[in-house]
């Protein structure tokens, strides 16, 4: 460490930003979750576990001692996890061939394809989501074309369904899967694929035994990049899903807005954080381990 003692100073600006913008607010949220809600929003400085209780249970309006499971909340939890898992799966399924296509192009044309993949990032998410809405609403483009060509008699209800939310999220998060997959494939030694064929493996076996294990780090990185923002997605489920397909992000926002129950919102937000971190650790333990190799 001779003469390098001052070098930690180089990261102080970043540390300050992180402290102010991440750890500080997180601490405030944690504190709020143990306080009581104010009548007009905000918090009253009375310690209470009510918010945490309310995350899972519901009290009867007239008889507060009568308690039942808060199925509405649990449903939102489940929907968030399930939709995010589906989104991750769809992105992986669509992203793999895309990334493979790009990685097998000549070097100079790859940049063009990667550039095309990132184009959606240039437009505001809100605008892109409204554009999807324009496509799939009852008198939107798709229904109009289908009605005009006589394929259907009455418009297909696509808005405010889980399908709409899935479509929107898969579209938004697809590049986040393609890019790490491409990075993993680009590093891959393609003579391994030839070695696979040479050793009598069929196309499917080469994919399964040779290519997939090589691009696994890309899948892991991509899944994390897609799943985490998906589970807290706000704009997409809000616009395309409406009230019927509410996700965690919307539920939390609701508590800080019309619900006027900041402590409950804070508790829900913390719970989401715990869920994401827990899922991440589980995922890395199960998928990230070096399978199949016995140590002597």
């Amino acid at each position, binding site marked *: 460490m001779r003469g390098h003692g001052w070098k930690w100073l180089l990261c102080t600006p970043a540390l300050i930003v992180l402290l102010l913008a991440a750890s500080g607010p997180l601490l405030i949220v944690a504190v709020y979750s143990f306080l009581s809600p104010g009548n007009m929003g905000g918090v009253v400085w009375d310690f209470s576990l009510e918010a945490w209780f309310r995350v899972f249970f519901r009290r009867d309006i007239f008889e507060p001692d009568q308690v039942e499971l808060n199925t509405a909340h649990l449903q939102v939890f489940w929907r968030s996890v399930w939709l995010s898992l589906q989104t991750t799966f769809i992105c992986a399924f669509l992203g793999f061939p895309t990334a493979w296509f790009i990685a097998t192009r000549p070097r100079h044309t790859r940049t063009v394809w990667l550039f095309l993949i990132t184009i959606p990032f240039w437009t505001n998410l809100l605008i892109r989501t409204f554009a999807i809405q324009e496509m799939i609403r009852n008198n939107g483009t798709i229904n109009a074309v289908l009605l005009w060509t006589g394929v259907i008699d009455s418009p297909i209800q696509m808005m405010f369904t889980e399908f709409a939310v899935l479509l929107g999220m898969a579209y938004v998060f697809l590049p986040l899967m393609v890019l790490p997959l491409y990075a993993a494939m680009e590093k891959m030694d393609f003579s391994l694929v030839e070695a696979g064929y040479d050793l009598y493996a069929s196309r499917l076996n080469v994919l399964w*035994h040779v290519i997939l294990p090589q691009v696994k780090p890309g899948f892991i990185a991509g899944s994390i990049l897609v799943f985490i923002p998906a589970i807290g997605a706000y704009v997409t489920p809000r616009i395309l899903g409406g009230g019927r397909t509410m996700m965690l992000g919307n539920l939390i926002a609701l508590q800080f807005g019309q619900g006027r129950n900041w402590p409950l919102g804070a508790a829900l937000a913390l719970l989401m954080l715990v869920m994401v971190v827990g899922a991440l650790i589980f995922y890395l333990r199960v998928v990230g381990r070096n399978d199949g190799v016995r140590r002597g």
Partner: protein
Amino acid sequence: MSQEIEITGLNKSFGQGAAAFHALRAIDLTIATGEFFTLLGPSGCGKTTLLRIIAGFEEPSTGVLRINGKDVTGLGPDKRPINTVFQSYALFPHMSVAQNIGFGLKMLGKPKSEIKATVAEMLQLVRMEAMADRLPSEISGGQQQRVALARALAPRPRVLLLDEPLSALDLKLRKEMQSELKRLQTETGITFVFVTHDQEEALTMSDRIAVMSAGEILQLGPPQEIYNAPVNRFVADFIGDTNFLRLRLRVKAVAAGEAVLELPGGKQASARLPASISPPVGSLVTAVIRPEQAEPTPAGQGEMQAVVASATFFGTDTHLHLLLDDAQGFVLRRQNRPDQPSPAPGTKLGLTFAPGALRVLED
């Protein structure tokens, strides 16, 4: 001996029309069962392309490839009884040594017990028993080389293709693997097709060598023939060291395939003249003589007179760089002996050589 590989009228070009690159032209080749066959040539001569066509990674533009009498043109590499040792080894990094070796058998759907037995046998064959559970990243380059060999041999292919497998090894290890390869080939009886740009490697290991340049096979034959009777200047230059001399042709066809050349200094010597060329008497021709096939004599004796310009020490021998009477350069290889110090620059000496050492070549 039966024919293992039979290639007829094979051409390969990349690209279309005027921009097309002809990687291989009119290749006709048969390789016998159990032969150690080497494709030798500088990089870009088409030897790797030819190997990849035999393996099935590339399709020939025209021509037919038969393996054991069966036309395999159009069959994928997974349908050919051929395995490859890749230049980069291409070991599967996520599989252990044993899993790598067993992969081919597993893909062929062999029962687990058979795979286990064969893997054990292969590990023993390449002396890697202790490394069975290691990952490729945990063993040395030479060990990876052995695993790549074992993996390719495990499915008992009819033909083993080796794409410059020793080029990444250091000299000592390379020498070791050369004899190891020869041993494995003799023990297994499998036909080896070996690609290299290293002429010494080719000479020491092969039963037959095909010297390639610019997509064509220039000469095909056993190492001794390639070395002693190169068909043209390229082969003579590429295989071993050679002295090229410009000499005047004095007499043609004293006997069949013989000629008399005028040496620097005026003496005449007989030389071999290939039947394929017929230069006019009195013209200058290119003649070659290997550095070790000439011997020094006291000055004034021998066929030619020379002056030592410089000497390079090589351990077992010394290369004497000589100037002949007509100022042409000549390299003489002289074995080092403690009782015979190498002559100092400026020393005059004579040169003599055995009949048949001097050959006229096509320019």
